[in-house]
Structure formats: structure tokens, C-alpha cells
């Protein structure tokens, strides 16, 4: 069990060894976001900006004009809260900067709503030029970080990372592609669960609960690139499976659920059920209790799926 933010903290310094154009900016959350590890390995390319996220965003814009690949990190809620600065200084300016937002979702638990990134995807998704990556596991996060460091980027990217340790699901990563991480049991799948980010383990568990107790067969698709989203994968699943669900530890307004709905509306109209925060602010509590209360535990996800489609509907 390892957190995706740990992947960032462990791997960015190694990428910094390999690429001398990587620069890291911190806004006094280096230990939490894990960007502080870059200070130890590359102090000359690390800048402590202080608790001034707007200034940090602007500085990243200017620095990127000199061939630097700038990673700036804060909590997802705080950094995307500086929307207009991101909009003008990075998105409209089209600067190839990587905005890292950690501590996303209810899964941070006890610190409560102010620290939870719950609408960050919605906000960033609205911005032209912005790309969004939301890896599900430690090893996928490593691959995403390598991609961001190795690729010549032509626009800003928002990288969303979780605080909580999660099961390390191994899967390939290709930018812009969804991955089928589990494809039904003996029967061909009749349900697709689209998942994004660190909730993937719970979604896989939910799929097994459903299969173990019913005649449903469940496909699980990990969508780590939220923008641009894998339209082909969504259409394929809409054609191949009868029932579609999205699951995200994020608001269903503007997040994965909205993104998948938009593709379906455009290309293959079909009912979809969006599971996530239903336009509400949750509260501070142990994560396990939050997931249970707000419907994101494996048991609650399975229950929701079965309440919509009882097993006798299969044939």
C-alpha cells in the first residue's frame, strides 16, 4: 500500500538527476505534497515560494520561458482555487508547466472539506489547453511522472495525486488512453465501471462483490487521463456493456462522470450513472466512514450498482 504522492516524492528527484531542466516550486507544503524531496537532491533548482500560490503560479509561467519544466505543488483545492491565475498566466499563455495538486478527494479524511480537492477536476477541465492526469496507483503515478518529464509538453498539465496509501495496481500507461484493468468473469461483461484516481482499488473490490453475489459480469476501466479523455474506450464500453457507471472521489459536477456523459451525448447516447459527491460538501471524519456515508466504499458502490440494475435484469 503506497500513496501516489509518494511516487512523486520518490521519483521526481531521480528525474531531476536525469533531466537538468526540471525545476520544483513549493508553497510551504513540501513535506505533504512530497515535493520537498527535490530540495534535498537539487537545491539549486528548488524554490520555496511560501504560502502564496498565486505568486508561485506566475513564477512558473516566467520560468518556463527559459526551457525549464516546472513542477509546482500544493493541495489540489488550494492550487486550483487560484483559478484566474492559472487561467491567464498558464492556460491562456499556454505554458508547459505541471501543476501538482495533492490531497485530493474525501480520502484525506480528518482535515476536512477545506483541504479536500473535490472540484479541482471540474475547474481545470473547463480550461482550454489544460491536460489532466489522475493516476490510480503508485506504479501508475511513476509512469505518469516519467511521461511528464520525458515528453516535450506543449501545454499546461494538472497532475492529481492522493494522500492515502492505496493498493499498487500494475497497469500500462499511455497518455490519453483508458485501461481495462479487469474485464468481467467467465461471462462477457454487462457492466462497465469507469474509475479515476486512487479509488480504483475500491472499484475493483466492488466489481468482485457484485460478481460474487449476482450473475453480473463487471468490467473496470481506469481513466487516468481525464483530459483529453479516451473517447474510443468510452464508446467501446458503451457498445459492449449494457450498464455504465462512473466512480470518482470528486464532485459528479464536472468530473469523470461529466466527461464520460459528454462523450456519450456526442457519440453514443446511453444512460450512465455517476457515483461521486452529489453536489455537496462532505465533512471531516475518518476516510472509511466518509466513504461509507457518501457512497464510495466498495460495499456502497456495489449496492448502488445493484439498486439500479438488479441481477435478474441481465438476460
Amino acid at each position: 500500500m503506497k500513496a501516489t504522492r509518494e511516487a512523486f516524492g520518490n521519483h521526481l528527484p531521480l528525474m531531476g538527476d536525469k533531466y537538468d531542466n526540471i525545476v520544483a516550486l513549493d508553497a510551504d507544503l513540501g513535506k505533504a505534497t512530497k515535493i520537498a524531496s527535490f530540495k534535498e537532491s537539487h537545491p539549486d533548482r528548488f524554490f520555496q515560494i511560501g504560502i502564496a500560490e498565486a505568486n508561485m503560479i506566475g513564477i512558473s509561467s516566467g520560468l518556463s520561458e527559459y526551457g525549464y519544466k516546472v513542477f509546482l505543488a500544493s493541495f489540489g483545492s488550494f492550487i486550483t482555487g487560484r483559478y484566474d491565475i492559472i487561467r491567464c498566466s498558464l492556460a491562456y499563455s499556454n505554458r508547459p508547466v505541471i501543476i501538482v495538486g495533492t490531497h485530493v478527494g474525501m480520502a484525506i479524511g480528518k482535515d476536512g472539506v477545506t483541504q479536500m480537492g473535490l472540484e479541482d477536476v471540474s475547474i481545470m477541465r473547463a480550461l482550454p489547453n489544460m491536460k489532466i492526469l489522475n493516476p490510480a496507483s503508485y506504479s501508475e503515478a511513476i509512469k505518469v511522472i516519467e511521461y511528464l518529464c520525458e515528453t516535450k509538453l506543449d501545454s499546461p498539465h494538472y497532475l492529481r495525486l492522493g494522500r492515502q496509501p492505496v493498493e499498487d495496481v500494475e497497469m500500462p500507461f499511455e497518455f490519453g488512453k483508458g485501461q481495462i484493468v479487469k474485464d468481467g468473469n467467465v461471462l462477457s461483461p454487462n457492466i462497465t465501471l469507469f474509475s479515476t484516481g486512487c479509488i480504483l482499488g475500491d472499484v475493483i473490490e466492488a466489481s468482485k462483490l457484485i460478481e460474487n453475489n449476482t450473475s453480473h459480469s463487471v468490467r473496470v476501466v481506469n481513466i487516468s487521463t481525464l483530459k483529453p479523455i479516451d473517447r474510443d474506450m468510452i464508446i467501446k464500453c458503451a457498445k459492449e456493456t449494457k450498464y455504465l457507471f462512473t466512480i470518482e472521489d470528486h464532485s459528479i459536477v464536472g468530473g469523470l462522470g461529466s466527461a464520460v456523459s459528454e462523450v456519450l451525448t456526442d457519440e453514443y447516447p446511453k444512460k450512465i450513472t455517476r457515483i461521486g459527491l452529489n453536489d455537496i460538501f462532505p465533512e471531516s471524519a475518518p476516510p472509511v466512514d466518509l466513504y461509507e456515508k457518501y457512497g464510495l466504499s466498495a460495499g456502497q458502490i456495489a449496492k448502488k450498482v445493484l439498486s439500479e440494475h438488479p441481477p435478474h435484469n441481465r438476460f
Partner: protein
Amino acid sequence: MKINPNVLRKKVIDMVRDKQSGHIGGAFSMAELTCVLYEDYDIGGKDKLILSKGHAVPIIYAVLHELGQITDEELDLFREIDSPLQGHPDKERLPLLDATTGSLGQGLSIAIGHSLGKNLRDEKGTVFCVLGDGELQEGQVWESLMYYPKTKLKNLICIVDWNKGQNDGYSKDVTIMYDNLRERISSFGWRTKIIDGHDMEVIRDNLDFEKDFSHLAGDKPLCLILDTIKGKGVSFMEHPDWHCKVPTDEEYEIAMKELGV
């Protein structure tokens, strides 16, 4: 090349009148500064101009036109469809510019990024950031004023165009900040000086480190507060009302006459 600030002002009035939109007041207050920067420095080359008060961009289009870097045809496209000359500076569409700005308060942070980038790359050149005085009401400006002195770098010069006016009226009616503006910025770690922003020689001398500041350079970055008049150059435009007002035909004739040249 010598540039006459009133020639730039006339071009600005022509642009704004032609397109029936644009910001005259804040462009006029920085006409002399614009001339000095483009006469003395390699703006767009090794020197950078981050126009944080992006609405004043007509004065930049005017100087680029005067220098032959943009054509008559391009100038005619100001605020038109498919144009590199956007209402506010757009570096993607007009690479002659050094930053995309227009949402106030953001330029000094971008300029600091340039300063850090130049330092890391060991590149020569100076980064100039021009802010409006009204813009100082944005919190991000103070984040960046607070941050930069710690870097000990001095390849960035912060310039405040203190023209006393903003969209809704006189800046002094909005906050008490302007009563002791110099002290406020100085207290954030800058060596700050108020100078006549309409005297090109004064601006020139004060931008020249070697000439005027070597004895007190120390570790502090330089912030020049340009004492200016919004709408400077045309008598009736020297009022906050001319933040983004378009002249009538009659006003246009008087203005062009007053600007002479």
C-alpha cells in the same frame, strides 16, 4: 532610434478611435517610459517587458509600429478578428511580446519567473515589469513584492505607473495605500524611489544602475514609482474618466492638435 512619446500617443488615439474601444488613459501615462525602454533596451530580445497593466498595450503596439516591427496592416487589425493585436497582450498571437497579461496582478510573478530563469541560465538582460497603481490593490502583487527580495537577484526592475486613476475613479478614493506608497513597498525589501514619470531623462538615469544607484545598490531590488498623470498629453483626458473612454470626433480633433508633432 529616438522615439517621440506624443507620436505614440497619437497612434493610440487613432487605434482606439478606429475600433471604438481601448484604454487611452493608462497608455498615455506610460508613453515616456515606453520610449525609454524601447530606445535603450533590447525589449523582446535579451531584455523583457512584462506589462502587468495589460490594458495599456496600445502604447506597446504603437511603439512596435513606430519601430517597424509591426506593419500598418497589422496595426489596423487592433481588436479585429484573426488579429495578433488582441485587446490585451497575447504573446501566443504576438510573439514580439514577452508575456500574456490582462487579468491584473499577475505580471510581477511572471517577471520574477523570468528573473529566476535568466539567473539559472546565466543569461544577460533586464526584466522590466510595469504595474498600474490601481493594480496594487491585487493581493498577488504583494505576494510577489514580498517574495522577490529574498532571491537577492537584481535583474528585475519593478516599475509602478502611479497615475492616480483607475476604472471607477481616483485610486486614493479606494484605499489609503497611496498616502505612503513608497514606504509600503520599501518595507517589503525594495529600494524604492518616486521619480517624474513624464521626464524621459529622469527615467533613463534612474533605470541605469551604474549611473545612479551603484552607491546604494546593496542587496535590494529596485522599484521605481513613476509619478504620472493618467491621460497625460491631452488636457481633457487627464482624468480617470479616460480609463477606457473613446473620443468623439470633436474630442479627437482637439486631442490631435494638442499632441502636436
